[in-house]
């Protein structure tokens, strides 16, 4: 097994005369690697279960008859292994190579793997120069495989790594080894092209050039590539990526096996989505509005104008007439300098970031109940959990690599999985996490809050309670039970369609867990009541006594790559760097001392507040960095009129986005591929982003632009490079910035818990423990605008690879739902509600529950006009992902 059991029992063996001491259960091939003996292999891969099909790894083991496959033999005490010192093993390996080369074409000069190919390397090592075979080589006719992935089956050594990866790691099972013997060929389904998650895993794991990426095909030879280790900029999982560049062009991205939080695995966005930085539409010069047109200008002119305008607005209306909004895609250093600029140079706390769109709900719940603003668990805890509860995650599409951790826990380590998801168990072309659930509570996207209450009610009814805490805080327990008792199972059934025994079973499984991790996704964090639901899940962990146990905790999933960093760097108005409160005078005082500039004592504000104030004419200028609120928020948020009313709008952007088109000045920023810095992933782990290519045109890193502006505004914050910013942050926040291979999870703070269970819970327990009003009219459908696996915001629409997989929006329905309404795949439908009507084509997906329709948010430019908008009273998170709509087939379509 790839993961030796956790016991510390060891065995000692010798390999080619070297002594190795390894944990019991370690495979001989791994033990050999540890003492520097590389046993050649094709089918073995540390990620996969041994298959021992290629026979390349044969070794001689004393007292064992015949040669043994070191990839499937466990090391035992006193074992004597001979690899390169065994003539017999060397001969056997030559023979294996001879069999492979009997069919392998002499393709190396045109093969993208040439130069990093295991077959080449082993052939070289074992000097297989002559062959006993004279027969013709097998020839597979070349077939089109897919837009992104190419196969060259003549090169295949039939190790089945790709097939096993797609099954064991991805749970997608899209690859079929067809036929038998030498004629085995990797295909998709029949003559159809590959339809899968396009994670690129099969490309990465193929030891030869049989599966390769079409995006980089024939564009390079591996030895021409320059490697730059960095971090993916698409989602909160924060995968390690390596940019491979040639002459300043991005050629491909991969991830080193075993490295990063992702252990070398990637998703489609990370693997195939890298062309954004090189898109021809990139802004290369600052733009200044002249009437309806933009004019390109030099940096000086643009910076002077922005600085002057900000000073003018400040002089005329006060600093609080200026607001700022920064994207969670920026680096920690960018966000830190931005908020320092806004607070210390402009003199306002009115800033916000994309963490507001949902991640704040999770962070605030953690902070309120356990006193940490980070997870108290890590990815390793997910993998080793014995019980996992997923709520509203659709984890495959939102946080695919965290999803792999869940798959690892369930598929390989036998963890129990409980899911409360708006998904049906159904097999499709991408994996579906609820297929792996022991207990699946399927609800509509509007049903999460009721289902969470149902689970809590079952927990209380079964008395799966922490007696010790109950003794200490009886009032808290009583308040919860009383409110849950008041909810009837009938009412819960009416809203979820789930009977009480399902909740009871799930509660029992949950209660039995020793290491329990609760993952919360956008279905909860971004829909109405998101904060309350997250709080109730904290209650669930707390009353069952799990919260403070090692390996247990709540894990809200960050959607954008640096949402967590945006919060920690003080990117959300009322929170200062380190997650401390702006309202605390002592904190403010310390910070202003460190900065040498006063921190204004005015309140911070959220994006919804900024919009409202702009509409009312109280906000005059807005500085938008990497955010595109016009394309993110629905019209019902009032964003259009808000922006229109501004006297001055500056956008700092890669592209001329919808919002930037409305700006007075547009400043060209460079992408994550062109700068240094750090991102903080969803589990609170800080990782380095590194420069892979030169800055495009005149674009500059965000922090440099803020710094230059501060000079223009006669209040300079100067930094020589990004390291200086990092140093300043580290000095300010000692201990919270652990760069390194793995994060140190935060520990729940018992005084925070004590405060919560004695008084703080009272504040909002009543609204949290109420069933939502069920206003379902029979013919209506719940529309959920949601994240697709193949995109990230609107940003990834500039990635040509991802557009090959998904280029347009469709409304997706369950086939039966569609059939009942006389709608077929591809039909045009009119989607309407009181806010408007939209025409869109239909797609069918079995994983979507009946009564529900989904639409990818990346293509929502039309459909978002149907979305109502509501703001969380506690966290100011804007909710706009769900709507009730009518569907009607457009006749004649």
């Amino acid at each position: 097994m790839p993961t030796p059991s956790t016991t510390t029992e060891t065995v000692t063996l010798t390999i080619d005369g070297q002594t190795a001491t390894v944990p019991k259960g370690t495979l001989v091939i791994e033990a050999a690697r540890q003492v520097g003996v590389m046993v050649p292999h094709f089918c073995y891969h540390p990620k996969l279960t041994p298959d021992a099909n290629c026979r390349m790894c044969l070794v001689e083991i004393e007292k064992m008859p015949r040669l043994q496959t070191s990839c499937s033999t466990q090391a035992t005490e006193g074992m004597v292994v001979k690899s390169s010192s065994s003539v017999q093993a060397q001969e056997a390996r030559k023979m294996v190579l001879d069999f492979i080369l009997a069919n392998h074409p002499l393709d190396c000069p045109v093969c993208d793997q040439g130069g990093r190919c295991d077959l080449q390397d082993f052939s070289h090592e074992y000097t297989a120069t002559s062959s006993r075979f004279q027969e013709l080589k097998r020839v597979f006719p070349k077939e089109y495989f897919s837009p992104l992935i190419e196969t060259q089956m003549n090169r295949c050594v039939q190790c089945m790594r790709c097939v096993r990866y797609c099954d064991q790691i991805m749970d997608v099972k899209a690859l079929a080894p067809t036929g038998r013997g030498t004629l085995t060929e990797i295909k998709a389904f029949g003559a159809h092209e590959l339809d899968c998650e396009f994670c690129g895993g099969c490309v990465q794991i193929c030891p030869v050039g049989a599966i390769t990426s079409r995006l980089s095909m024939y564009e390079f030879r591996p030895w021409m590539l320059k490697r730059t280790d960095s971090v993916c900029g698409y989602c909160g999982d924060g995968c390690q990526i390596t940019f491979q560049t040639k002459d300043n062009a991005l050629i491909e991205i991969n991830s080193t096996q075993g490295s990063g939080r992702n252990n070398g695995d990637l998703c489609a966005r990370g693997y195939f989505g890298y062309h954004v930085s090189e898109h021809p539409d990139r802004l290369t010069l600052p733009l200044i509005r002249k009437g309806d047109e933009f004019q390109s200008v030099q940096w000086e002119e643009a910076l002077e104008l922005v600085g002057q305008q900000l000073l003018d607005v400040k002089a005329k209306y006060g600093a609080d007439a200026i607001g700022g909004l920064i994207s969670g895609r920026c680096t920690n250093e960018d966000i830190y300098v931005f908020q320092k600029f806004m607070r210390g140079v402009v003199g306002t706390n009115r800033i916000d970031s994309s963490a507001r769109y949902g991640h704040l709900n999770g962070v605030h719940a953690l902070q309120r109940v356990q006193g940490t603003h980070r997870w108290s668990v890590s990815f390793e805890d997910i993998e080793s959990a014995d019980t996992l509860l997923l709520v509203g995650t659709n984890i495959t599409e939102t946080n695919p690599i965290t999803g792999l951790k869940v798959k690892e826990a369930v598929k390989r380590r036998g963890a129990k999985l409980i899911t409360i998801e708006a998904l049906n168990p159904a097999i499709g072309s991408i994996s579906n996490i609820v297929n792996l659930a022991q207990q699946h509570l399927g609800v509509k996207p509007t049903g999460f809050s009721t289902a969470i209450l149902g689970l809590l009610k079952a927990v209380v009814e079964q008395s799966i309670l922490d007696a010790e805490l109950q003794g200490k805080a009886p009032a808290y327990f009583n308040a919860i039970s009383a409110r849950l008792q008041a909810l009837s199972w009938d009412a819960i059934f009416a809203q979820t369609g789930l009977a009480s025994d399902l909740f009871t079973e799930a509660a029992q499984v949950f209660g039995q867990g020793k290491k329990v991790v609760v993952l919360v996704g956008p279905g909860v964090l971004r829909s109405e009541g998101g904060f309350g639901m997250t709080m109730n899940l904290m209650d669930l962990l707390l009353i069952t006594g799990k919260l403070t146990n090692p390996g247990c905790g709540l894990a809200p999933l960050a959607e954008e790559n640096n949402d967590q960093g945006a919060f920690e760097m003080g990117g959300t108005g009322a929170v200062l760097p380190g997650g401390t409160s702006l309202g605390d005078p002592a904190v403010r005082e310390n910070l202003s001392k460190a900065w040498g500039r006063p921190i204004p004592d005015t309140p911070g504000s959220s994006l919804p507040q900024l919009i409202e104030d702009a509409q009312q004419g109280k906000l005059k200028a807005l500085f938008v960095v990497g955010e595109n609120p016009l394309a993110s928020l629905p019209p019902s948020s009032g964003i259009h009129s808000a922006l229109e009313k501004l006297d001055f709008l500056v956008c700092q952007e890669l592209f001329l986005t919808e919002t930037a088109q409305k700006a007075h000045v547009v400043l060209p920023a460079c992408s994550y591929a062109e700068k240094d810095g750090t991102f903080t992933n969803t589990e609170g782990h800080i990782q380095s982003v590194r420069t892979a290519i030169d800055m495009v045109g005149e674009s500059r890193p965000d922090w440099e632009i803020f710094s230059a502006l501060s000079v223009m505004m006669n209040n300079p914050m100067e930094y020589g490079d990004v390291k200086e910013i990092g140093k300043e942050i580290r000095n300010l926040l000692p201990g919270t910035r652990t760069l390194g291979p793995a994060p140190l999870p935060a520990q729940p703070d018992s005084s925070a818990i004590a405060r919560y269970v004695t008084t703080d819970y009272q504040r909002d327990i009543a609204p949290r423990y109420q069933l939502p009003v069920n206003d379902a009219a029979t013919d209506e459908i719940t529309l959920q605008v949601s994240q697709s696996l193949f995109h990230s915001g609107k940003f990834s629409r500039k990635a040509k690879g991802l557009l090959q997989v998904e280029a347009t929006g469709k409304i997706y329905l369950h086939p039966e739902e569609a059939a009942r309404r006389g709608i077929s795949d591809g039909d045009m439908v009119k989607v309407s509600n009181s806010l408007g009507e939209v025409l869109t084509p239909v797609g069918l997906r079995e994983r979507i529950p009946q009564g529900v329709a989904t639409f990818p948010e990346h293509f929502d430019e039309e459909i978002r006009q149907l979305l109502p908008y509501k703001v969380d009273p506690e966290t100011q998170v804007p909710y706009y992902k769900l709507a009730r709509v009518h569907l009607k087939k457009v006749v004649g379509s």
Partner: protein
Amino acid sequence: MLLEKFKDEVEEILSRYPVKRSALLPLLNLAQREEGFVSEPAMRDIAKVLELTPPQVFETVTFYTMFNLKPIGKFHLQVCKSLMCALVRSDDVVTWISKKLNIVPGQTTADNNFTLSVVECLGSCGTGPMMQVNDDYYEQLTEEKVVRVLDDLARDGNCHLKSGPFMFPTTSGKSR
């Protein structure tokens, strides 16, 4: 849809196995019995019942030469090409058929009557060269015999030269 048409039989098959995917081969047999080959819709249906992906079903179908992935003619001529038969000139059998019907292995006659395939050992090595036509064996083939079999089958849909297979004991204990 195949599985609805044979609901009871499918259920009976499924009930035989504690692990669902074990029912894959019997269900594929059912599909081929019905259509003469395993069609893509059938593979998708079977995948759905067994909670597999279509590629997983496809992979299994391609492993067994007895499953046809394309529609075949009314009579499926499967000539054994394994060692024993090869020693007694199974190659000639293929040539005779090709000459007579004007098709090569893998092809079907224009009138959709005959499909020619070459297959691995059918367990009649002692009586080679031989071929299996649909469920029947024709053994110790000569050119004359092959021509007669093909003529009979084309004309009558039957041929009394068939000689097997004799492998299933009947309930009376005797071979059929």
